[in-house]
């Protein structure tokens, strides 16, 4: 089957798939965390990712703060915006139907993207690659920055997973995910926890945005084009399953990359075909626990 396909092309696309997968994984993990605790389908996630990249660009161009500063500062700034948004917009909608949260977050996404487009136009802004160069592996050329993105994203996903599965803080989160009322009877300020969790999920999106800035153009629509796939990833992985979201993210990135080599025409639909099959076989998602089926 792989006859006639150069290894150069195969590995090139695999790497590309892994890069895309890194973004899918980080973004869908944030979405899954937010959905799990708050039952909010955060449609602003893509815009928050875009904001991360824009904040990095602004820090560089207006304050002279480079990539490494942005990697820390941009997620904090955007998470702050997210927490204000949670308090003012999402909390009042908390006891209403899911649909209200979905529409409200979608509205914010449109507004944020619109403002970014108004101010900076729809053509992308370039962001300089902070780690230039690469290494020739013989069968392919591996740019250092891309290697950094993959490694950083894997580490971020593992750290996030450990935080949620193996710490006391994570136990609060998992418990509140199941039954927030009872967790509150233990004296835990669940509303505050929700604000911080939303901030954390949004911060992850912004962090992905900073990572993406040197690879893709910093543009107002960079988030929305990615989000359709990311939502598919979350649905396939199982809404609220954190590890499921990350693993599915990488897997789909790679599947997408391989499809580009084997049958390029199908590359843009393969994820959705996969979603149909996966949901047919496991309606609650591949990594959903039995209880939620």
């Amino acid at each position, binding site marked *: 089957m792989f006859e006639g396909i150069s290894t150069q092309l195969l590995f090139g696309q695999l790497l590309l798939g892994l890069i895309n997968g890194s973004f899918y994984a980080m973004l869908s993990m944030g979405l899954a965390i937010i959905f799990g605790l708050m039952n909010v389908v955060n449609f602003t996630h893509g815009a928050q990712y875009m904001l991360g990249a824009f904040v990095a660009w602004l820090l560089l161009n207006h304050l002279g703060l480079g990539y490494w500063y942005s990697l820390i500062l941009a997620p904090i700034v955007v998470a702050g915006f997210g927490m204000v948004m949670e308090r003012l917009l999402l909390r009042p909608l908390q006891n209403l139907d899911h649909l209200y949260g979905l529409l409200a977050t979608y509205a914010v996404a449109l507004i944020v993207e619109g403002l970014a487009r108004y101010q900076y136009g729809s053509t992308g802004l370039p962001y300089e690659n902070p780690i230039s160069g690469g290494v020739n592996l013989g069968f392919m050329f591996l740019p250092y920055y891309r290697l950094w993105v993959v490694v950083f994203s894997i580490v971020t996903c593992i750290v996030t997973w450990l935080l949620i599965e193996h710490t006391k803080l994570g*136990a609060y989160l998992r418990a509140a995910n199941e039954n927030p009322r009872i967790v*509150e009877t*233990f*004296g*835990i300020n669940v509303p505050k926890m929700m604000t911080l969790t939303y901030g954390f999920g949004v911060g992850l999106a912004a962090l992905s945005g900073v990572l993406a800035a040197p690879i893709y153009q910093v543009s107002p629509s960079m988030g929305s084009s990615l989000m359709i796939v990311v939502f598919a990833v979350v649905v396939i992985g199982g809404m609220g399953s954190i590890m499921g979201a990350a693993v599915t993210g990488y897997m789909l990135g790679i599947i997408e990359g391989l499809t580009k080599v084997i049958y390029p025409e199908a590359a843009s639909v393969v994820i959705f075909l996969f979603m149909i099959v996966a949901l047919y076989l496991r309606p609650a998602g591949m990594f959903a626990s039995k209880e939620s089926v």
Partner: protein
Amino acid sequence: MNSLAEARPVAAQAMLKVKSLSAWYAESKVLHGMTFDVREGELLTLIGRNGAGKTTTLRSIMGIVRKRTGSINFSGQELIGKRTFEIARLGIGYCPEERAIFSSLSVRENLFLPPVLREGGLSDEALYATFPNLKARAGSQGTKLSGGEQQMLAIARILRTGSRLVLLDEPSEGLAPVVVKEIGEIIHGLKAQGFTIVLVEQNLRFARQVADRHVVVENGKVVDILTNEELSADMGRIKTYLGV
């Protein structure tokens, strides 16, 4: 009517005073002016038929039912208007009817989830001594425990937080007689250790074995308050309320 109870050594001052408590679920009024108090160190039951408002009373004390009027005074602090987590931090532990063991947490994580809010709670050793089963199964998934073990876990986890008042909602429900007996002994032990306990019960036999006083609830109102002695002396009186 309460002369007997007032003469008891346990009859110290009231720790919890509930006065004219009314509560609503959405538009429907469930409690219609409940008045009773719980004395320090006492074990008080709320008994009554299904749907009488016993669980709602506990949920109103905890602030889980938000829409409520009247007064709930705990050690001088008014609870109405406070959020659930603020109420818990004053030193009230709550064990819900559904037990609410978390399936995504291990037994150990379930047990140690509630943070220690004040001094005076059971130490980890004392806790495991009281609930040896939980130690043996500390690594299992919380919901893999038997019903009785889950009930013990639900009680155990609120004992290390330093709460002085614990609200137990039907701990005997759905359990085999031998397990009910075990839980009765545990509750007895807690009382001996100085916990003040409000117990919602439908199981009259179980209630009689552990309680100091009984508050009879009907249609969201307190219709009678009797001491355990009065209850034993006049079982007919209570059976008319419960319709048994």
